[in-house]
């Protein structure tokens, strides 16, 4: 487990600076299995990302994971949670930002901050139907253009709807 003392200190330091800088945005901080997750509000996402990249030197957005909590969410809870896996390398510090998103809410695109978010967001749109405002070219990336529906949603059947060709 890479949660050596130095990592923990740097992560806690980063999180403290983060919550100091954005008191309204940081909703909760959870540490589990050596990984730190910061729950953020939707509005401040890009500001936090830019702050992390420019000031704290988190130079890599490793992955954007989208969770469909159709069945697990409490009544009226947000349909999707979008996780931004951010890391600072080579110092090997890793942080996860979680943002709750409703069914047809629009998130700000992270492309202006991290170039590698381009395709990850297109995949999130293709698989879940999440729209990203400010994305240079938001199109389907895996499925053919004329495909309706978003496959990775929990209510989409595994075998697909129209049975292929």
């Amino acid at each position: 487990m890479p949660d050596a003392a130095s990592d923990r200190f740097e992560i806690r330091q980063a999180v403290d600076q983060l919550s100091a800088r954005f008191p309204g945005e940081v909703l909760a901080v959870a540490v589990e299995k050596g990984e730190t997750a910061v729950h953020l509000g939707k509005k401040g996402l890009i500001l936090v990302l830019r702050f992390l990249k420019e000031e704290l030197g988190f130079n890599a957005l490793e992955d954007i994971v989208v969770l469909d909590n159709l069945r697990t969410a409490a009544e009226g809870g947000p349909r999707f949670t979008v996780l931004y896996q951010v890391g600072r390398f080579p110092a090997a510090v890793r942080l996860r930002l979680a943002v709750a998103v409703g069914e047809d809410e629009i998130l700000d695109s992270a492309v202006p901050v991290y170039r590698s978010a381009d395709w990850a967001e297109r995949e999130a749109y293709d698989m879940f139907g999440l729209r990203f405002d400010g994305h240079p070219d938001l199109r389907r990336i895996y499925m053919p253009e004329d495909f309706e529906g978003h496959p990775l949603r929990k209510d989409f059947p595994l075998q697909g709807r129209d049975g292929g060709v």
Partner: protein
Amino acid sequence: MTEDLSKQPFLLARADDLITWAQKNSLWPFGSGLACCAIEMIATAAARFDIARFGMELFRASPRQADLFIVAGTVTNKMAPVIRRLWDQMPDPKWALAMGNCAIGGGPFPTYSVLQGVDKIIPVDVYVAGCPPTPQGLIHGLMTLQEKIARSHPTKEILDPHARRSL
């Protein structure tokens, strides 16, 4: 030849032998690979298993010059029209070999985007099972295809174009 020659017109039988001998011994596969099976197909053409011995090592990149379409890998719904167009571009005496469980029947992927078997879009002559099939398995499939070609009667097609390609 398994058929008795009395029924078969003598001259045509000899012509059949000659044509099928040529077609059997110079099957040029089409250099198209889709997924994991493509790597095993290349390993089959590489030094250790070497299908060049059968004269098959000329992987033609253009469908116009290929006789054998080895569908090596998963055919997705997005790729299916491309496979169908490539098959139509191949000149006529052509054969198809479905390599691997994905090409035979969707393999381990019963999902929304995978075509459950390539024989839904192109007529397949030989199925080689395996995920991926070992090079020996593929060579066995190619040899069965050669036997199948040896039994076919190309002259019957030339003389009577309506005759379906007899198996």
